[in-house]
């Protein structure tokens, strides 16, 4: 991949996270490989249930057990395998070297805690600061995030702030300790479009100045386009396509990606009707021997039903899990 020469920060190998439910084993993440370089911004795209959030939670080792459990794979972060660490060592990493931002900002803040204390608590925990210096530091970070009147924001309770403001507070908490990796799980999905844009801008600017890597999961293709240099598309617990963001939007090489792009409004195709994808993703409890996208795929052949296409480099820097990636590439042009 293009990041091979850059310093590798995170490498996920064969990650498998399963949920053991009454209805059977749900393979939410079933063999995901990727790597992330220092300071890189990687987007993880997919519809609900594709496994992108579970991938994010698995890296943090915050998958709720029971019912979820990481059943296989390795997560190498700064050279050490996170899955081999004990709980105390993992706790020291969370919030200091790798931190997380969530979808619903107001719900992810303690309702009876002033937001200044919330930010300060992480600093007290990982930097060993006292309450006073931690609050001063919280104020400095809010200024860095260009929050208006930060002196008043630190004294506010979450319910007194808007959703965008709460998300800024969560971002401040996440970056307070200058972690090496920030995982943003649908961080902008609950916000309206203008706020979304300004939050994304803040996030990208910050990761650039601090040299922090960003793993952004989202169902929104446009968010990825705005914020990420590289993108991975997930479907039914596996990565189906991985490449530089520009390449993905110009010439996708997997029929699922093409379907996703066709169902998103774009300026280039004004006047043309949106093409929604037919069918539904398979149930996570289903065990399919072949390609998970088979039932919805316009390019399917009998081979796809019995044999699973591996994720392979079909062109330099372009990875696709489709036997007919080249045909898929031509298909997009035919449609556009």
């Amino acid at each position, binding site marked *: 991949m293009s990041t091979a020469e850059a310093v590798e920060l995170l490498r996920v190998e064969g990650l498998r996270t399963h949920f053991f439910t009454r209805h059977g084993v749900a393979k939410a993440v079933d063999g995901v490989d990727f790597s992330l370089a220092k300071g890189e911004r990687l987007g993880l795209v997919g519809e609900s249930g594709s496994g992108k959030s579970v991938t994010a939670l698995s890296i*943090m080792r915050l998958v709720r057990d029971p019912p979820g459990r990481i059943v296989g794979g390795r997560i190498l972060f700064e050279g050490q395998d996170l899955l081999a660490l004990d709980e105390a060592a993992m706790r020291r990493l969370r919030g200091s070297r790798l931190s997380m931002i969530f979808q619903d900002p107001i719900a992810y803040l303690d309702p009876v805690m002033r937001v200044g204390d919330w930010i300060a*608590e992480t600093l007290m925990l990982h930097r060993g600061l006292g309450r006073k210096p931690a609050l001063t530091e919280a104020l400095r970070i809010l200024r860095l995030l260009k929050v208006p009147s930060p002196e*008043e924001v630190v004294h506010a309770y979450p319910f007194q702030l808007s959703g965008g403001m709460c998300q800024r507070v969560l971002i401040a908490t996440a970056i307070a300790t200058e972690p090496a990796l920030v995982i943003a799980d649908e961080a902008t999905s609950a916000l309206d479009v203008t706020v979304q844009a300004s939050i994304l*801008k803040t996030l990208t600017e910050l990761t650039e100045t601090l040299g922090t890597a960003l793993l952004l999961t989202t169902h929104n293709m446009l968010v990825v386009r705005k914020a990420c240099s590289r993108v991975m598309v997930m479907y039914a617990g596996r990565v189906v396509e991985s490449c530089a963001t520009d390449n993905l939007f110009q010439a996708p090489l997997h029929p699922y990606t093409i379907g996703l792009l066709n169902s998103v409004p774009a300026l280039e195709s004004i006047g043309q009707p949106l093409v929604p994808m037919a069918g539904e993703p398979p149930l996570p409890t289903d065990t399919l021997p072949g390609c998970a996208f088979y039932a919805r795929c316009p390019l399917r052949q009998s081979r796809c039903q019995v044999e699973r296409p591996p994720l392979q480099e079909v062109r330099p820097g372009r990875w696709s899990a489709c036997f007919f990636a080249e045909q898929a590439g031509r298909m997009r042009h035919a449609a556009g």
Partner: protein
Amino acid sequence: MAVTPEIAPVERPVWRPWALMTRHKSIAAGSAIVLLVVLMALLAPVLSPYDPNEVHPLDRLKPIGSPGYLLGADQQGRDMLTRLMWGARSSLAIAVLPLSISAIIGLALGAIAGYLGRLSETLIMRGMDVVFGLPPILLAIAVSATLGPGLVNLMLSLTIVLIPPMTRVTYQVVVGLKEQAFVEAARAAGASSFQIIFSQILPNSLAPTIAYAASLAGAMVVFGAGISFIGLGIQPPDPDWGRMINDGREVLDLKPHVSTLPGLAIFVLAAGFNFLGDGVRDLLDPRMRQ
């Protein structure tokens, strides 16, 4: 980012007790009543016209408004007003102390059982079920039979009786809190279970638990008076409202004031605590402070 249109101006929360009083009428009414009784109890040595156990055989059963006896006298000629003032002390102690102690214990046990779960949950909650099975009156009888009757032992048995409901209320709240997003966020920030219990779980379960405790204060006044009425609480000749009702029982048809005045006092104090309890519930919720 010159313009950030989504940011609403932040109102810095200010603690304004008087504004609260005028907004929440029940707090005003409740605290006025409770404050009156507290003052009565505190100032009893100064304000009461007689010693509470001073007997005046010639003035037995004087009616309300007799000269020298504003609220009359009981069948031993003791001043009713004096005894009501002194009796407020035990009623207040019974209402406040067992509740506070059991609330603290219940918060700790409920938070541990609810958040940590597993073995601690089984041990604590099943243990509570056992104590729950004891009828409060029977427990009070057992305690006074073994340790002897009296105010301290009465409060002890009340504390034991109150711990299970307090623990259960906290437990229920904590089980709900545990699933909340901000607890997950705290875990994602690297907090340990005990740090989360202290920083997130306890502060968030405080309001509902205290509200529940406050709502029980009125019932405790009535219950404590009941125990003293049947003779297991405050012992004669010490003044207590429940005890005084019992004293007046035999002359209820002829001189009703001996029983009804302490009864009225119990009613008023219980109502005061109930008003206050309702108000406290609203007050402790930060969302209501606006």
